[in-house]
């Protein structure tokens, strides 16, 4: 089975959006779209599932809150409940206002950083990662839609040329 894909290049995001809708209507499978900037509504047009990053972040925040609470309860109440300036260290709740700034910051810290790391892992981004850019112009001013080739490739090429493409290439993927 050949690994042929079609690279369709556009030079306008509105044309790209229309082309994506037409392609979906014609039941061609869009492998990937490369754009130089976020195109509003592209994910909806492509039919991508919504992200669950926010849910992950909320859970990470709860982890941060638990870490802060457990840490301070152990240190300040259980392990060495000293009288520091008359603060009531008999139970956690009695001295809680003093702990709230730490609880808040730890919640934000965990939620933010773990979410960012999750994003890097899920989108496979790290230093020294080899760039996957199929055409250098897509980081500047061109939009590239990669479609899996199947059946009559010539007919597909003419279909994409009719969607306002500036360039249509058939590529053999390694």
């Amino acid at each position, binding site marked *: 089975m050949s690994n042929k894909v079609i690279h369709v290049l556009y030079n306008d995001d509105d044309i790209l959006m229309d082309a994506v809708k037409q392609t979906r209507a014609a039941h061609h499978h869009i492998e990937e779209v490369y754009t130089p900037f976020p195109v509003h509504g592209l994910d909806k047009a492509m039919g991508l599932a919504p992200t669950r990053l*926010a849910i992950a972040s*909320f859970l990470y925040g709860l982890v941060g809150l638990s870490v802060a609470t457990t840490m301070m309860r152990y240190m300040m109440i259980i392990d060495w409940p000293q009288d520091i300036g*008359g603060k009531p260290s008999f139970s956690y709740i009695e001295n809680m*206002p*003093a702990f*709230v700034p730490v609880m808040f910051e730890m919640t934000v810290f965990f939620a933010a950083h773990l979410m960012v790391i999750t994003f890097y892992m899920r989108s496979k981004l790290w230093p020294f990662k080899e760039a996957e850019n199929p055409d250098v112009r897509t980081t500047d001013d061109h939009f590239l839609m990669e479609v899996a080739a199947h059946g009559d490739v010539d007919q597909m090429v003419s279909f994409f040329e009719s969607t306002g493409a500036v360039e249509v290439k058939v590529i053999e993927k390694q």
Partner: protein
Amino acid sequence: MYTFSSRLKTFSFVLIALGILGIGYSFLTAPKTVEDVEKILAAENAHGGHGADHEAGAAHGEDAHGHAAEGHHEATASHTSHGNDTHAEAGHQPDVHAAHDEHQEHLEHVLHQLKTKPWSAVYVAALFFMLLSLGALAFYAIQNAAQAGWSPVLFRVMEGISSYLIPGAIIVFILLVLGVMDMHHIFIWMDEDVVAKDHLIQAKTGYLNGPFFLIRAAIFMGGWIWYRQYSRKNSLLQDDANDNIYYKKNFKASASFLVFFIISESIMSWDWIMSVDPHWYSTLFGWYVFASFFVSGITAIALITVYLKAKGYLEYVNTSHIHDLAKFMFGISVFWTYLWFSQFMLMWYADIPEEVVYFKTRIEDYNLPFFGMLVMNFVFPVLILINTDFKRLSWIIVMAGIVILCGHYIDFFNMIMPATVGDRWFIGVGEIGAVLLFLGLFIFVVFTTLTKAPLLAKRNPLIEESKHFHY
């Protein structure tokens, strides 16, 4: 055009009637003399004593303990609160009371609290609904000055809500005048006998004196009402104009109003709320009060928008507009909590007696409302409104909105009541009656104004963007 549904109109009249009945009942049943108070206290003590007798009984054990503790608390409450509550001194006439014992002083103290209770109930509710409408007006001014593209379809709703400012401010002003005329004792610094014996208040009489107090109130209320009427007029004229001159006038008026508003709001919070505790002061109090009624105003906008949308009157309002309002409800709730906590924590941490007494009385005597409002105003909205999908559901907005509004009523209750009625507080007929009265009046005034003009501002330069707003 909106037509005021007759059922809603009847409902608002019923609320007003019930409210007047409740307020009247609470005024009539308030004790008038020291003897009445003695009877009330005797009844309470007898109840406590009765419980104590049966303390051994297993079935009544817990109940009895509770009553006994309550009775004991009553007996000691006056001693603990004398130091910080100027009401104790209110009934203290130098010549008459020279020979009176502690018990008599306690009775006077309780009498004062109980006599002020129905007045405070009316004052809290009147202030809450007036400030709620002012919060909506401030939001309206911000939307105008910021040239927000999403909100112009909601301008007529905001103008409707801010129309309550006129009757609401007049009622609050009358209550302030009655205070200066010595008809009630919500503001203890208005009592000359108290000021004569209190050198802390004496030092503040340059600011806290009747005429200056009323002049300030008149200027602030006049300024707010003037902006409200002026912007409403321009907004209606813009509908039929050929150019954008009225829009530009509104823009300039809104920007100026916001400057005036933030100054007057801050001073207003010292005058009408902080001065019920004339011995206490807090720097960020103005912001705190602002956050409380600002979020209430936004919530009222959201609730009335949802109502009108459900009745089919707001053609161009979509879930994105509701979503934006819900985001504001969420964000300002968090902002309120930030200010609440900053004020509380700074005083709790430093523990300076003269300022921490404010929170001490609230935590001891108002434990449930003080911390309960934190759940209603912070925990509940944060957990429910954090979800994007939830922010688009009408029933979630209505539920969260009702909890937020009740929570901020309790917030105002917590600001006023501890200084005026102390541990004698109760959310009973008088308090609920006052809320019903002003709620009924609010509904009547707001929805009457909504019938006066089309619900869509026609020629606002941003209206097309707002109609197609999509988030």
